[in-house]
């Protein structure tokens, strides 16, 4: 990680500092780094650190990995073999010095919601030897979510939302790929927001919150549908918490935003990149030279250390 940081213009090592972290700088760093992120939650705010970095290991705490947009079944020139790149991503998870407590998959597991695509994704992710918490992407809902729910719906509410706790951090899995309406952004829907209100009602405001979902919870680029119409209602319910980290996929690139106590992080895909917001006529797959593709794909590692005020977040490309 240090090598990568040093080699990269505009990156500052102070991003990896413990307290007094320059969050804006860190976010820039993340935007550049793109791929695998080690999320560490320290004292409530997730921070990312380099996967190759021993940071998380030496600090202890909870580490987990986000993997996203594996798109098994995609076969176009932008990446004819997303199964191979997903396998690479899983290998990079297995190679982490500190094994993650679990993985979160932020959707678009498959490209076409087909059972054989789910089967292949499951087979590949098995290689990480880790529990996986899923939320669906819109590509996993082309069949109305039947195949997704059959595999990952057990114990979830509504269209697949749920929450769980790990080492003092409250994780909330939201589904925002079901309520699509003409000409507008996707939404969580009233039922899910009512559930969320109930879910967090008993929590102390000092509880670190990690929300993960597929489509961004902020208006990244509404013209391309990169936002969630009623995300404001959900975030209002989380306002009283000292540390809220929102992780999502969908846009196949790393972008960050900080709003009060809430940090938003979009993640890389393991399948193919997409253009920066508005940088192309459409958000279609971005074709990059084959030998550069690994620089655009990756995973994210997150570490939380109790008593620290932020989570450490590291986006790790498959290929430096």
């Amino acid at each position, binding site marked *: 990680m240090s090598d990568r940081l040093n080699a990269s213009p505009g990156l500052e090592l102070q991003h990896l500092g413990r307290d007094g972290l320059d969050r804006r700088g860190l976010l820039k760093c993340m935007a550049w780094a793109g791929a695998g992120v080690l999320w560490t939650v320290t004292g409530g705010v997730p921070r990312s650190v380099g996967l190759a970095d021993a940071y998380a290991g030496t600090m202890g705490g909870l580490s987990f990995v986000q993997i996203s947009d594996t798109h098994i079944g995609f076969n*176009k*020139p*932008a990446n004819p073999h997303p199964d191979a790149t997903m396998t690479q991503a899983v290998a990079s998870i297995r190679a982490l010095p500190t094994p993650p407590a679990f993985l979160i998959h932020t959707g678009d597991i498959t*490209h*076409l*919601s087909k059972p054989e695509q789910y089967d292949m994704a499951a087979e590949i992710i098995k290689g990480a030897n880790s529990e996986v918490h899923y939320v669906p992407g*819109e*590509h996993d*809902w*082309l*069949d109305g979510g039947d195949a997704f729910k059959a595999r990952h719906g057990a114990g979830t509410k509504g269209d697949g939302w749920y929450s769980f706790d790990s080492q003092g951090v409250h994780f909330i899995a939201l589904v925002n790929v079901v309520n*699509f*309406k*003409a*000409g*507008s*952004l*996707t939404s969580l829907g009233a039922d899910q927001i009512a559930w969320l209100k109930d879910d967090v009602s008993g929590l102390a405001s000092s509880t670190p919150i990690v929300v993960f979902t597929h489509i961004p919870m902020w208006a990244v680029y*509404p*013209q*391309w*549908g990169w936002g969630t119409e009623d995300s404001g209602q959900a975030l209002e319910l989380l306002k009283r918490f000292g540390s809220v980290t929102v992780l999502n996929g969908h846009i196949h690139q790393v972008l960050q935003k900080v709003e009060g106590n809430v940090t938003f992080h979009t993640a890389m895909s393991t399948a193919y990149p997409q253009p920066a917001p508005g940088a192309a*006529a*459409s*958000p*279609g*797959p971005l074709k990059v030279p084959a030998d550069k593709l690994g620089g655009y794909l990756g995973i994210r590692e997150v570490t939380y250390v109790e008593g620290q005020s932020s989570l450490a977040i590291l986006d790790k490309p498959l290929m430096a």
Partner: protein
Amino acid sequence: MTSLRRSGSLPVLRRLRRGSSLFVLGGALALLLVLGSLAHWNRTAAVAGETREVKIDNYSFSPGTLTVPVGTTVSWTNRDETVHTVVAQDAGHTFKSGGLDTDDKFSFTFDKPGTYVYICTVHPYMTGKIVVQ
């Protein structure tokens, strides 16, 4: 084709001239009526039974609004590298494709007049309209 068939029937009329002129007249009128109605039926069917194309290119439906007579089949073709869907926005989802991969087609025959707004559920800012008259 229809006009060729009509002129082809004239020698038949000439052969019939030897018989009762009234019969010939009646026969010719009947024949013309039949041919005429057949031609009309053909013309109606040719239009109403037509297939009209909507292309999905660069995350948009083209044409965005298509006006067709009742009985027309509309066929959508996805020419993008990503998946799209075609889903009517009325309560019952009058038509609803599954995920359309590159070059996949979906078609629907419109038997009832009305205005049908549809979207791609994967990218709901992609909207289109079929007006059936």
